Structures are given as C-alpha cells and as structure tokens.
C-alpha cells in the first residue's frame, strides 16, 4: 500500500500526535492507517469496539456491513449505540456516531446482509476484513471470500465468557501465507449441537475486550508493527482470566487453498452449515402469531407448550405450559395427541426441534411450530409484554 500521497492537515496531526510520537509507530504507520481500507462485517458486540478504535486510530476508509436495526437488547454490549438509535439501521447509526468521533475519515455503509452474491464485490474494494459476525454460515463466507481475494481476515468470536482471536490468510514479510478459518475448523458444528447466542447469551463486557484485541490486530496488520496473530489462535476465558495462545498451521486438506482445492467460488453457506432443511426431511407444520391469536379469540381447542428455560419463562410468558426442550421427550405424556398443539420458544428454533423430536419418537401429527416464537408474539400481538 503506497503512502506517498498521504498528507495530514493541522487538525489531523494534532489528533494523531500520541500515535506519531511512538518511536516504533511514527508518521509512517499513521500514513498507512490513513491509506488503509478496512471492511468490518457486523457492527454489533465485536464490531462496536472494532469500529470505534479503528475510527479513532484514523483508518482512512472503513466499510460497515450490517442489515440489522438497533434493539434495546443490544445496548448492554454494543457500545456504539444509545437509546436514541433504537429502531435505526445499525450501519447508518454507526456511521453517524463514528463520523462524530473522527470526521477525517470515510465511512461506507452496506445496509444489507453479507451474502455469497455480494461478498466478493464488496470485499474486493478493501485491504482486509474484520469478522464480527454472529453465525457460522457468515463466518465461513467471510473466510472464503477473504481467501479467494487474497486478503487478511482478522477474526474474533465470543460465546458467554469465552473469546477467540486470530489473523487468517495473512502473508508475512517472508511471503509465507498463514492458515485460515477452514484450517482451524474444517467444518461447522451441526445445528443444535452448539447453542446460538440468542440461547447462550454473552457477558456484555466480553466483546469489548475481544473486539479491542481484534482492532489491535487490524492495526498491526496495516502498519506492520509487531507480529500479527497469524499462525496463532488466542483464547480467553473471562471467568478464570486464563488466556492461551495456540499454534495453528495450514492443512493440506483445506478445500480452499490446500493441496487439492475443491472450492473455487463462494458456495451456499446455509447449506454447508446444515441450516437448510434437506428436501428428504418432512417439513413441519407452522402457525403464525396472528393465526394463534385468531385461534385464541375464536375459542379454538388447542394446547400451548413453551419449550424455553425456566429463567426465560419468568421474564415473559404467554400462559403456555412450560416443558423445556431438554425435557420434552420425558414429558411427551403431558402433550395432547387428540387436539392441536402449538409449541413455541423464543424465536422458533428450539420449538421446531421439539416438534421434530416428538414427531419422530412418538408419532405426533398434531403439532404446530409458532413462527418467530414469543418475540414475534410480543411484537405483533402484545407489545406491552417484556422482550429479551
């Protein structure tokens, strides 16, 4: 990246003074930051500290990909946003906040989902990507797009009290290419084996810690300062305060850039992660919250089951019988086989599992999954109820 034409005005020099006076950093590193173009995918828990620090540090062009809107439940960790931004587009709200922090940089927003269709077109304009997404399909997509385009992928991930950081697909000064996400984890866990963040939760300060480390690695990769976390895999356990840095290597069987690459273009990542129902699998019956409401008001005879956990039920419930997912099979006898049964959870994922389990093991054919779960119910039918 050429820094020949990079100049700073008086305000910028004053702003970046504490960077510039670091002997190992200096004006040259600051110029590299200004010349750099960084794409941040996801402006939530990890994206918040990453974006704030990269903006403050003076990265010249920052792209933000996020299709989501700010929700109350984001504010315990997504420090980019405040109550006035609730309901607004995250990408746009982030841009406004970041330009207020540093008006000397360019922010480009992509108020859209990062997909196999747009990923290469978006990422090709940038020098590197920082992955702050929240699901396996997008993580493999970000990784594959970065590898196909030959760009470093600064990776961080969190779950409850655990954090992970690494620098993928980085070519060092000797021209050696480091490992990528597929070298570390060749395949994602099948759906259901690992709880999602919506079920699992995350301690609010954790993304602040891990996202700051991610921002640090972005800055190191751009400026060449120190040794980026390439070929290394950092893990942090907030409860024990233990952190470990493991050695990781490229693998010959990596389908992207191993000895016999089989993936030469972006694929369907939902399918790769097992999130699409195979056509051989029988579809389950569903009901919308509006239909459920109609059933109730018409006095239709049906049983309503909630398969969430007790602590969730205590936050908000709609009067269903509580049978947590892990105990559904043991309590199958409590579920009526002779009339319609509606099963719900928070968003519809766990209740779909419950319906499948009951159909497969006990032959139920009268079960309906509530689309969108209790959150959809609160949104559409009873907005006065608590959301979480």
């Amino acid at each position, binding site marked *: 990246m050429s820094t020949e034409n990079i100049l700073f005005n008086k305000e910028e020099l004053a702003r970046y003074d504490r960077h510039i006076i670091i002997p190992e950093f200096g004006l040259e590193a600051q110029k590299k930051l200004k010349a750099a173009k960084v794409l941040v995918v996801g402006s939530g828990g990890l994206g918040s500290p990453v974006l704030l620090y990269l903006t403050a540090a003076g990265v010249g062009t920052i792209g933000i990909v996020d299709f989501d809107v700010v929700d109350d439940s984001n504010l315990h960790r997504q420090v980019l946003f405040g109550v006035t931004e609730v309901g607004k587009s995250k990408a746009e709200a982030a841009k406004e906040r970041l330009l207020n922090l540093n008006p000397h940089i360019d922010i480009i927003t992509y108020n859209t989902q990062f997909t196999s269709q747009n990923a290469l077109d978006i990422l090709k304009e940038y020098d590197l990507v920082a992955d702050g997404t929240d699901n396996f399909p997008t993580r493999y997509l970000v990784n594959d797009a970065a590898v196909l385009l030959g760009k470093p992928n600064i990776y961080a991930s969190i779950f409850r009290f655990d954090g992970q950081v690494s620098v993928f697909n980085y070519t060092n000064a000797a021209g050696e290419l480091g490992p990528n996400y597929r070298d*570390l984890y060749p395949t994602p866990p099948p759906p259901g084996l690992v709880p999602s963040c919506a079920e699992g939760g995350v301690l609010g300060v954790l993304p602040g810690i891990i996202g700051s480390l991610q921002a640090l690695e972005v800055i190191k990769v751009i400026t060449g300062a120190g040794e980026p976390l390439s070929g290394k895999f950092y893990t942090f356990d907030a409860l024990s305060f233990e952190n470990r840095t493991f050695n990781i290597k490229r693998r010959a069987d990596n389908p992207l850039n191993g000895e016999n690459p089989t993936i030469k273009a972006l694929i369907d990542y939902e399918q790769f992660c097992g999130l699409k129902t195979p056509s051989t699998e029988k579809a389950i019956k569903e009901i919308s919250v509006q239909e459920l409401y109609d059933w109730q008001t018409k006095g239709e005879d049906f049983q309503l089951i909630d398969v969430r956990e007790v602590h969730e039920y205590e936050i908000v419930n709609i009067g269903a019988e509580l049978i947590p997912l892990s105990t559904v099979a043991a309590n199958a006898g409590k579920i009526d086989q002779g009339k319609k049964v509606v099963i719900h959870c928070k968003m519809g994922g766990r209740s779909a599992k419950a319906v499948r389990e009951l159909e497969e093991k006990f032959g139920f054919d009268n079960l309906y999954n509530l689309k969108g779960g209790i959150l959809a119910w609160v949104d559409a039918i009873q907005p006065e109820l608590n959301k979480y």
Partner: protein
Amino acid sequence: MATVIIPTPLRKFTNNTAKVNVEASNINEVVSSITTEFPELKKHLLDENGRIRTFVNVFVGDDDIRDLKQEETKVNASTIISIVPAIAGGKH
C-alpha cells in the same frame, strides 16, 4: 495427572467443572476418561465413528493434536490439554 481444560460451552456437561484431572498416557485415554466420567460430553466431542469432531480442536500444551500424533499424542502428568470448540458469536 494431566489436566483437561473444559471450555464454557461444554461445562454444562461436566457439572460446571472447568478443569478435570485424568490419569492417561495419550489423548485417546484422556477422551475415554472424561467421557466415562461425564457421559454427556461424548456426543459433543466425538462423531459416530468415535473420532474427535472436526469443529472441536484439542491442544496439547500449545499445539494442535492434528500437528502431533492425533489421538495417539502422548500426555504426561504435567500436560495441559485444552478443548476448544468453534464458537460463532459476535454481532447479536
């Protein structure tokens, strides 16, 4: 005894135990020991063929067992074994 560090997502299958001490001379024995003590761990660590799942990494000291001798990798009383599954959180 070798020490196995259990990651947060799997602690619900180990009665919230974060560190498990095992008598073992290699990773096969480590896995066998902890899955005997905590049977629920088994389906999360091993696939149908009894191999360690590809979204769960096992490190002996600082190194991935895939770069050592896989499940045959030797361990001793001072070895720290880390189990690190893929996690994907970050935005929501």
